[in-house]
């Protein structure tokens, strides 16, 4: 009986260790930093007007909505040819928030009601709770511009790293 129990403990520890290793290999082991995934077209097209937003910042339904309305992209025409648009959409959808296992993507996703499809990350409950101590006048500083400009304060934002140690709010 005792030997049988020992065997069970051994087996379960092996399975959980390998599961941990597997998740670590695929997506950063459930840490806070988003998996730094990349795609050349996404990088070139999505960072010519604004900072580069990691796919793990919004769920699949948000990216689909975003990419099907590029002719009216936050008040600007950001149209792409169909092939480029489809490739970028595929990349965003494949790596969206609900498909990432890092904690921050999970929390963003969980903070969005099932019936909502936000286009602005700053409208998610997760973002708002994380920035409740930042006043609107701070966001409006010339050096920042708006809440959409993550990189003004989070210098590693484009790599999906929003950790506290990387924050510096400019004057």
């Amino acid at each position, binding site marked *: 009986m005792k030997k049988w129990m020992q065997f069970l403990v051994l087996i379960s520890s092996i399975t959980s260790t390998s599961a941990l290793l597997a998740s670590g290999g695929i997506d950063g082991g459930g840490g806070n930093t988003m998996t730094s995934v990349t795609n050349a077209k996404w990088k070139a097209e999505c960072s010519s007007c604004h900072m580069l937003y990691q796919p793990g910042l919004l769920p699949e339904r948000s990216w689909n909505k975003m990419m099907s309305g590029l*002719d009216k992209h936050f008040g600007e025409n*950001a*149209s792409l040819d169909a092939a480029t648009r489809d490739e970028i959409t595929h990349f965003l959808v494949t790596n969206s928030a609900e498909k990432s296992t890092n904690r921050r993507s999970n929390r963003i996703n969980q903070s969005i009601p099932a019936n909502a499809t936000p286009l602005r990350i700053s409208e998610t409950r997760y973002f708002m709770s994380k920035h409740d101590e930042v006043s609107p006048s701070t966001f409006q500083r010339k050096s920042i511009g708006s809440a959409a400009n993550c990189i003004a304060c989070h210098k590693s934002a484009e790599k999906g790293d929003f950790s506290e140690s990387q924050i510096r709010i400019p004057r």
Partner: protein
Amino acid sequence: MRKNMMLLGLLFSVNVLAATPQELLKQYETQAKQENPAFSGFSADRGASFFKAEHVHSTGQKVSCSTCHTADPRNQGKTRANKVIEPMATIANPQRFTDAAKVEKWFGRNCKDVLERACTAQEKGDYIQYLVNVK
């Protein structure tokens, strides 16, 4: 039919290979002649006023090319989302007007944003002529 094919071939080759501003101007000249039989060349002066001309957008905002590119095309500009735009004048940025697809992409977007319509080949040519001539 043959003429159309040749034109298609020309457009295709210009789109694929790196172009010079002069080649792009030639391409827009061909289009401008088709749009207007009385076409009489591109004008840098017309391009300069086009660059600065303010339009009242349907949102009520006054917009022009220089809203984002600044009044001096040798300067860096800034997008509404705070991103730097490299200078438009070729003297400050020799990369400008060397990629036909890129040029068409941005005319396509920005003409609709500023003018709320597509630009004519005449306007595109005047614009490039101005930015090539700025010293």
